[in-house]
């Protein structure tokens, strides 16, 4: 709920102020070049602190008929307003000789024009007011954005945690916001400040005190104050006693007797004066090339945020609008699909599932979790939900828990929950877990399928869940998303083994296209026929071909198809790159943990490595006989025999994960040296291993499993 308020304001404020912000960012971008170009125009005067005012007064007076004012600007240029040859002029003078070294050019009229636009949009006072208000909106946008970021990452402490890979516009919007949040706040606050000052809304500082006393009392201040201390020196109008030198000193305004240099009056600057100067500097970057460049980047960033933010908004909108056309009435539907979706990804998957049910002539109804009501003819409830931030319900699911309590269903419903999320967030699928638990504890609901959690939209994991649904409903659901896969390649079966006692077999495939690139750990999508959803297998790169280890499932269409493939036959498949599961190039040691056919990628990886002593292989398999088919491919494995651990689950009555934990000291040493733990095999093995590992890591090194995952020291590819 709170999330939607922040998101709504983030969006609404953007929409309201977008035109203005584009104008301001573009003109600001141009203006940022003003100080930069000034900076390059001429050399800086250095050594201003070496020259006192008496010296300067003398040198300019000897060069010109009359001098009115001398100003020292942010770039340390000395600008004098003088009379020479009967005409008044603005000139730059040398601080040493007092001679004219150049004419003051009019401030570039282009920059002046843009400044005017940036300040008031050519609308004078109204424009200035609007600019002030929209600067404030920019601040609100930045603040609501940072709240959204914190929500997304599960708290302010995690703002800098890894950004979950998403569509590029969304990913970079989030990633860049962490770097540009503070500069944007600075730019908007200073903008608001300057506007408020313009409209005299700021408190005038009371501590502007006037006093005849100063640090120069009784001395000739003109001899003591240097050019580096002042911004402006006004010469006396005439030689009257009551005409003085007026000095804008860094500490205040001074009135100095023109004959003896004594300070007659000093008006100290209040805090407001310094604050205004600072705000003005922060907003314009005048005098600092670094800050100007930063402001320029910031203008670009604002434009980028607007474009990327708007594209995220459009994508979400189109996702939520793509409602299925042929919705069955909810009073007659047998299958109800409920969706909890924040960004629309889950919704997209749910719609595909819905269409797939429709194609199978099922009476199916789809709606958001918050629209849960009573469904008189329903038998099955399928829930797909993501999780938001710190384990909260996504935007359209917040009321589901209460609805579930109050609404009575006529039939007993069997339910299946699919959670979508990313293991890179601390609360992976926790809302799906909550929903699954709620249904478990509510009367009138039976479990159809146990809860399944999908990491990063893994099509492999989703396929597995779909296959389970297919078995239950005795239908053929396909996912259009999966069939949308890229072009396929042809592979020739070069070698194959028979099925061993575990119904497992190995294929060695050679691509017909010998430029095809792949690595151990990549995935191969295979489809047994056009209409069938593809299955995905982890591969090993082996002798320039692909090695596949497959377990034949009694009802698995694809594994049955591959089990029947003959030698030298061609099969169609496509390689999917899987960069998150790569063998590291630096040799800090790797521990490979696999069960069953999960050994596949490691056969390729450990074949290529040169360093046999720092790597470990833990492999769980049912019986020693199961090994037979693998033996010829294991020969080339570069692994020291002391580093090889094989657990026979049937023989030793023990699973591989327990064996790994017995050798926890190896893992700790590995992590300490920057090594990596790689896990491939069944999801169940991985979950149990993670459970045990979490406990061990907590007690031995007081670090969480998550810590090592986020550091990239634990990689897994399980299904």
């Amino acid at each position: 709920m709170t999330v939607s308020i922040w998101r709504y304001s983030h969006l609404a404020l953007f929409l309201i102020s977008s035109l203005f912000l584009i104008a301001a960012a573009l003109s600001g971008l141009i203006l940022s070049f003003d100080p930069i170009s000034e900076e390059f125009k001429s050399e800086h005067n250095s050594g201003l602190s070496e020259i006192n005012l008496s010296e300067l007064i003398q040198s300019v007076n000897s060069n010109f008929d009359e001098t009115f004012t001398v100003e020292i600007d942010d770039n340390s240029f000395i600008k004098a307003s003088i009379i020479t040859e009967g005409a008044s002029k603005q000139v730059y003078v040398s601080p040493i000789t007092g001679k004219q070294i150049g004419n003051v050019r009019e401030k570039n009229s282009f920059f002046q024009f843009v400044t005017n636009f940036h300040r008031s949009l050519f609308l004078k006072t109204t424009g200035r007011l609007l600019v002030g208000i929209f600067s404030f909106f920019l601040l609100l946008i930045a603040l609501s954005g940072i709240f959204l970021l914190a929500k997304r990452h599960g708290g302010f402490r995690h703002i800098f945690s890894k950004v979950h890979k998403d569509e590029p516009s969304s990913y970079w919007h989030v990633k860049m916001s962490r770097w540009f949040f503070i500069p944007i706040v600075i730019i908007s606050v200073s903008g608001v400040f300057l506007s408020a000052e313009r409209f005299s809304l700021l408190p005038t500082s009371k501590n502007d005190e006037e006093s005849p006393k100063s640090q120069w009392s009784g001395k000739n201040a003109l001899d003591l104050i240097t050019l580096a201390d002042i911004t402006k020196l006004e010469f006396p109008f005439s030689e009257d006693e009551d005409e003085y030198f007026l000095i804008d000193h860094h500490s205040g305004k001074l009135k100095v007797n023109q004959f003896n240099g004594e300070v007659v009056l000093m008006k100290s600057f209040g805090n407001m004066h310094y604050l205004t100067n600072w705000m003005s500097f922060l907003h314009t970057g005048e005098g600092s090339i670094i800050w100007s460049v930063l402001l320029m980047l910031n203008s670009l960033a604002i434009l980028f945020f607007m474009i990327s933010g708007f594209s995220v908004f459009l994508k979400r909108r189109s996702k939520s609008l793509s409602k299925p056309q042929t919705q069955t009435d909810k009073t007659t539907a047998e299958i109800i699909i409920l969706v909890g979706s924040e960004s629309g990804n889950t919704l997209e998957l749910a719609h595909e599932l819905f269409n797939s049910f429709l194609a199978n002539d099922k009476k199916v109804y789809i709606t958001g979790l918050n629209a849960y009501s009573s469904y008189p003819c329903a038998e099955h409830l399928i829930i797909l939900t993501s999780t938001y931030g710190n384990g909260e319900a996504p935007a359209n699911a917040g009321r589901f828990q209460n609805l579930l309590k109050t609404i009575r269903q006529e039939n007993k419903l069997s339910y299946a929950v699919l959670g979508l999320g990313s293991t890179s967030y601390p609360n992976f699928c926790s809302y799906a877990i909550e929903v699954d638990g709620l249904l478990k504890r509510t009367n009138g609901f039976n479990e159809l399928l146990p809860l399944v959690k999908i990491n990063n939209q893994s099509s492999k994991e989703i396929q597995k869940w779909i296959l389970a649904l297919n078995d239950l409903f005795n239908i053929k659901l396909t996912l259009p998303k999966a069939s949308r896969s890229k072009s396929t390649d042809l592979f020739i079966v070069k070698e194959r083994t028979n099925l061993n006692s575990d119904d497992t077999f190995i294929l060695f495939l050679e691509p017909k296209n010998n430029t095809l690139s792949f690595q151990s750990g990549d995935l191969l999508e295979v489809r047994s026929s056009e209409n069938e959803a593809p299955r995905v297998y982890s591969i090993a790169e082996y002798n320039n071909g692909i090695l596949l280890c497959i377990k034949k499932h009694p009802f698995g269409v694809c594994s049955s198809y591959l089990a029947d493939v003959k030698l030298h036959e061609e099969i169609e498949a496509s390689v999917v790159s899987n960069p998150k599961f790569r063998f590291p190039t630096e040799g800090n040691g790797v521990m490979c943990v696999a069960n069953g056919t999960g050994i596949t990628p490691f056969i390729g990886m450990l074949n290529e490595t040169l360093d046999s002593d720092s790597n470990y292989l833990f492999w769980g398999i049912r019986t020693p006989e199961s090994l037979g088919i693998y033996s010829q491919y294991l020969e080339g494995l570069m692994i020291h025999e002391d580093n090889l651990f094989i657990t026979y689950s049937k023989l030793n009555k023990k699973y591989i994960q327990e064996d790994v934990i017995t050798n926890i000291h190896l893992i700790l040493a590995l992590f300490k040296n920057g090594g990596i733990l790689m896990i491939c095999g069944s999801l169940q093995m991985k979950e149990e291993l993670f459970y045990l590992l979490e406990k061990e890591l907590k007690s031995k090194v007081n670090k969480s499993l998550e810590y090592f995952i986020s550091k990239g020291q634990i990689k897994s590819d399980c299904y």
Partner: protein
Amino acid sequence: MKISNHILVVLAFGVLAAFTSQNITSNYKCMIQLKNYTGEGAYVIVSILDSHEEYSETLYVQGEDKDWFNEISEWWKFYGKYRPNLDAITGATVSGGERTINLIKIPTDKIDAGYYLRFETAVEDQEYYTTDLQLELTTENLTQKREGSGFIRYVKMIAQ
């Protein structure tokens, strides 16, 4: 023939007189000290008016943003018609409490000739004073400190 000769002579003198009168100017140093008001810098226009108080010449314009010139409505009626280039006699605005010193060039023949010197002031979103300070253009007046009635505290002039 004779008459036309006379006319020519008169014309020639007239042109010469006009020529000289436009070029002989007296330089005056002029200090404008503003009151302590808050807000944007003040626009100050210094003009010469003839004996009927019609604008005759603009001597000095303090304020560079031409977008605001039309807010100084009396002067704008005179200047806005032709809008001659003012760059040579334009300076930046100064804020409340500050002062500016400038060189103004007053046509010598207009001094002590029934003309007026007018200082009019305006500040964005605040008042506009048509005659913040107006004085007869006499040699004596040009050497005295004169107080303004609007944003100007006083004006001081000295022959340069």
